[in-house]
């Protein structure tokens, strides 16, 4: 078991290193000189100033030296400075990571709770009204882009009934209730695809298990339906929920990118989109590395949990 976990950690480190290499080289070969960008249009036309800036940014070093310096820094959470001001990239990242994590975790919790509940209800009402409702919600959740469901929420909850703020991030320590209010719509919007997949997965795996012989034996033994469902059938559904969360991670990250932009939520993705628009290389590198690392770590964790629950997959 320990060997299996160590192997997953090793794979994760290799993958993160590969991602770092690709991002770094990709940005070096992008059109545009960072030194000119840092100086702005006016001073950027002066070749002497550009040369000086290149020296200062370390752009005259050989490619490999630059890369080695940067990687060494990354491991100490030193991502360099923003091109346009003297703020450390890590300061930007540190203030936006918790906001994105909060959104993602809220979405995962909502998705799991609502999805598993809907899936169970649908499977024990197979063919009934609740089943049809749950299947339709799943179909809509899987096909509608998150910003459309987000827009629907805004139209109904904040414009029609004026219950929730239509966008913006409120700091928890300034106004705890306002913070939760601002969290509701974005996290529900992101969680809808997750709710959809988890509902589908829970429903089908519950139905599959309910058909098995051992359930009939348990019923014949006189166990109550509740205990059979919770203790015996649901256990199988939990494995599939973990798998689905792992598979849906790419969508979840895509969801945070779009929803953060839409709800003006100043998280990692907003930072990334803004710095892509302003071409702030050091921030882009940092943000991409962090997002991709989360993605890789979650995939590896899912692999480990999967291995713990089902030893055949190791």
């Amino acid at each position, binding site marked *: 078991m320990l060997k299996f976990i160590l192997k997953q950690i090793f794979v994760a480190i290799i993958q993160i290193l590969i991602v770092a290499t690709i991002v770094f080289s*990709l940005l070096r070969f992008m059109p545009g000189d960072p030194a000119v960008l840092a100086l702005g249009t006016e001073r950027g036309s002066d070749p002497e100033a550009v040369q000086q800036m290149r020296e200062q940014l370390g752009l005259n070093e050989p490619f490999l030296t630059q890369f080695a310096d940067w990687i060494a820094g990354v491991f100490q959470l030193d991502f360099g400075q923003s091109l346009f001001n003297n703020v450390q990239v890590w300061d930007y990242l540190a203030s936006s990571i918790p906001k994105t994590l909060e959104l993602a975790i809220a979405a995962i919790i909502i998705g799991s709770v609502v999805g598993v509940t809907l899936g169970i209800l649908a499977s024990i009402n197979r063919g009934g009204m609740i089943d049809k409702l749950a299947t339709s919600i799943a179909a*809509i959740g899987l*096909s509608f882009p998150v910003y*459309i469901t987000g827009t629907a929420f805004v*139209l109904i909850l904040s*414009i029609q009934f004026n219950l929730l703020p239509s966008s913006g991030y409120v700091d928890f320590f300034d106004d705890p209730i306002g913070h939760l209010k601002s969290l509701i719509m974005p996290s529900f919007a992101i969680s809808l695809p997750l709710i959809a997949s988890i509902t589908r997965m829970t429903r*089908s795996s519950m139905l599959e298990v309910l058909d098995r012989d051992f359930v009939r034996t348990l019923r014949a033994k006189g166990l109550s339906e509740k205990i059979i469902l919770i203790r015996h059938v649901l256990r199988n559904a939990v494995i599939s929920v973990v798998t689905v969360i792992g598979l849906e991670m790419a969508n979840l990250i*895509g969801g945070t*990118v779009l929803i953060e932009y839409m709800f003006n939520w100043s998280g990692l993705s907003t930072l990334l989109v803004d710095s892509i*628009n302003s071409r702030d290389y050091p921030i882009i590198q940092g943000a991409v590395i962090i997002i991709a690392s989360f993605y890789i770590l979650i995939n590896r964790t899912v692999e480990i949990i999967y291995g713990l629950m089902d030893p055949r997959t190791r």
Partner: protein
Amino acid sequence: MFKKLLQNKQFIFSTILLLPVFIVALIGQFITPYDPLEFNHNQVLIKSSSEHLLGTDEFGRDILSRLIVGIQPTILVAIGATAISLVGGTIFGVIAGYARGIAEKTVMRFMDIVLCFPPILLALLVVGFWGSGVNNLMLIIGLLYIPYFARITHSATLQVKSLEYVESELSLGATHFRVILKSILPNITSPIIVQASLTFAATILLESGLSFLGLGVTPPAPSWGQMIGDASGYIHNNPFYVIWPSLCLGVTMLAINLLGDSLRDVLDPKLKR
């Protein structure tokens, strides 16, 4: 196969929904009531009138005309990207599954590397720097989805290759090229078609997402995602401006997913949920 598809109600229903979308994508520019790019500062953000059926946007452009023209780039990008990833992924996947050994390891490890990134992240980076536009989007999104295809065709090829008739064909002296073309490819079309429908939906989602962020189809040419992005700023003034493109995109996505589900049910009964 076609007979079975035509008996599937879901398939019929989703095709009926999608047919007008494709037709409008094809002939859109000839049937617009107004010029979709023409500004009209006297009629800004109108809700609905006899002149402008679905109202106007922040520059007074006719929303209906923009919706009609706005399908084209989305469908174009989706078709192009799906074709690129289908061809590329199938070539890589079949070669990897057929040749095994070093070729397989190299190809599949390389695919794993691309899969380390969430697709939208790489797309954002590349589009942000090399510029958007239909051709770039098509190419980038297509390349990003190659690994998903390669994985499917790889495992399908492995299955088919171990069957006796492939071995017997080889022992009769058939060239590898012939075996791949005549025995492997025809037998892995089902998973390829199913994956193509999934990719088609995913590429539309990615294109409209990028356009929503303002990094997709280049303005002033409209696309649905971009219209939703622009309109969400005017949601208080004219909610219908955001409702129409959202409805169009949502229903199209729903139809494509229903189509994908029905294709999977018919072509790949083992995957039926």
